[in-house]
């Protein structure tokens, strides 16, 4: 029994160290924003400043990159979400030979390195004289983000009770009405979270975007180029803003989830 207790404590210790490892880098990156030093660091500490936030706000190239990122992410949302839904509907309906093959094919973009997705898109569209830019970025990102959407929608679809559809049909609803009034409302939560994930995936993508961006620099590409050339704590300020948004979203999501749980159990 004593070894059990020791095991428990050692695993707790390990978890503690692990979360320290997970968060220390982010905390240090955040702290470096407030250090009055030309280069982002926390050692030595040269005094507290907020000047890097105003430096960030005045960075026109950053705002432009943010704008490009938002346009690309919206484009991906509009294209990838319908494709993903269609694939999920197809996979939940079709039974027969070739299903495993098609499923593997639809999964393959997720198992392909991002740089290769970018490269193949770039080469393919060169044949149509389309060079890198916002449009190609949307296409390349859609290639694999659609697969994420498919997986998320499919997960919910697999728990769907098809007798509901049959009931609607036998009560005289058309197939379109059944889809519109029964299946689509059922899928709505999965579609919304898939859309959120798709937006986020697009927004933070780097490896694929790098090859197809042309001259349209997205925010992630901009940050990477800043780190390598012209690194100042303004990059940290940007990072801190993005982390703060993330943490707030995560907390809101958690509160919402707990409320839902309570309302279900109570």
């Amino acid at each position, binding site marked *: 029994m004593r070894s059990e207790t020791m095991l428990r404590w050692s695993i707790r210790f390990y978890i503690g160290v692990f979360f320290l490892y997970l968060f220390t880098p982010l905390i240090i990156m955040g702290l470096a924003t407030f250090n009055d030093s030309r280069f982002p660091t926390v050692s030595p500490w040269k005094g507290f400043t907020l000047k890097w936030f105003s430096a960030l706000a005045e960075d026109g190239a950053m705002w432009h990159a943010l704008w490009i990122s938002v346009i690309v992410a919206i484009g991906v949302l509009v294209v990838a979400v319908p494709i993903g839904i269609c694939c999920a509907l197809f996979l939940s309906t079709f039974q027969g030979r070739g299903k495993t093959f098609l499923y593997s094919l639809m999964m393959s973009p997720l198992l392909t390195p991002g740089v*290769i997705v970018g*490269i193949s898109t770039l080469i393919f569209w060169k044949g149509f004289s389309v060079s890198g830019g916002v449009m190609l970025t949307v296409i390349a990102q859609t290639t694999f983000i659609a697969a994420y959407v498919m997986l998320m929608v499919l997960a919910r679809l697999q728990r769907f009770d098809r007798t509901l559809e049959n009931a609607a049909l036998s009560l005289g609803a058309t197939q379109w009405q059944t889809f519109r009034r029964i299946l689509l409302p059922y899928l709505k939560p999965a579609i919304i979270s898939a859309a959120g994930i798709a937006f986020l995936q697009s927004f933070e993508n780097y490896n694929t975007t790098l090859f197809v961006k042309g001259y349209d620099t997205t925010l992630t590409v901009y940050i990477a180029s800043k*780190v390598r050339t012209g690194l100042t704590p303004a990059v940290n300020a940007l990072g801190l803003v993005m982390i703060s948004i993330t943490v707030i979203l995560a907390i809101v999501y958690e509160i919402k989830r707990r409320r839902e749980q309570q309302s279900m159990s109570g």
Partner: protein
Amino acid sequence: MFSQLKARFGSSLAVGILGMIAIWLLGMVILPQLLMVDYSFRPNLFPSEIGGPKDVYSLGNYETLFSNLIHLKIFLKTIWSSVLVTVLTLLVSYPIAFYLAKVATPRQAAFCLLLLVIPFWINEILRTFAWYIILAYKGPLNAMLLGMGVIDRPIRFLSGDGGVLIGMVYAYILFMIFPIYNAIESLDTNQVKAARNLGAGWIRTHWRVIIPHAKPGIATGCIMTFMLAAGSYAVPSLLGSPGSRWFTQIIYNWFFEGGDWNQGAAYAFLLLIICIGFIALVMRIFKVGLGDIAK
């Protein structure tokens, strides 16, 4: 195929569904990949020469890798380092996944999962950049080690592959934890208790009960981590130095500095083959099918 869809959704919706899938699979997945492979077997020519007598298939672009020792070395190093990253990530992740799935109370697990998701939502560049600050020559890690008297002078973490490995384990750890967590979570806790009651020690319980059950999750995690590591451009370009280049950086240079897309396509295809090979290997070792992966 069509009749099943038509029976459920009606013909116009069925046409729409199949059309969307066809556009995606053909126009974005299959044809671009095939064209990339086609490109890789052709020489790099001036636009006027394309389709001319010089435009013939050859293995020339692949021979480049084996005649260029620097590229070959980087290619092999990328594979080896990605395997190393995968193994390290697996070792770090397994206890966490096990703790979350079987030791923690549901409340604790929910809280820990939330904590895990936060760095996961922050993009790869920022996660890597955070390590760039820590590992810098005059950064906090060196300052701390110097202060503690562990080292006499600062270490150049960012000049070798060490920084890249640390950054990759950090960046991809969640792709390992989540699949393993999902797999272990689906194991009936009574099975663990039964093994313990029958006298199995902790190690044996893991080896004979939990790990066999978690195999699909471990396989998925390893495949994702290897693929992300081998295909990473962000981490080596931020944490590496000219002396520790990654194969993706060579590919990038063929496209945007060397201007030889055919050569770049050949290297990209080699990278893809390595990833496919790794997937096949993992599926063989763990005896899982493609259907078990990425569930």
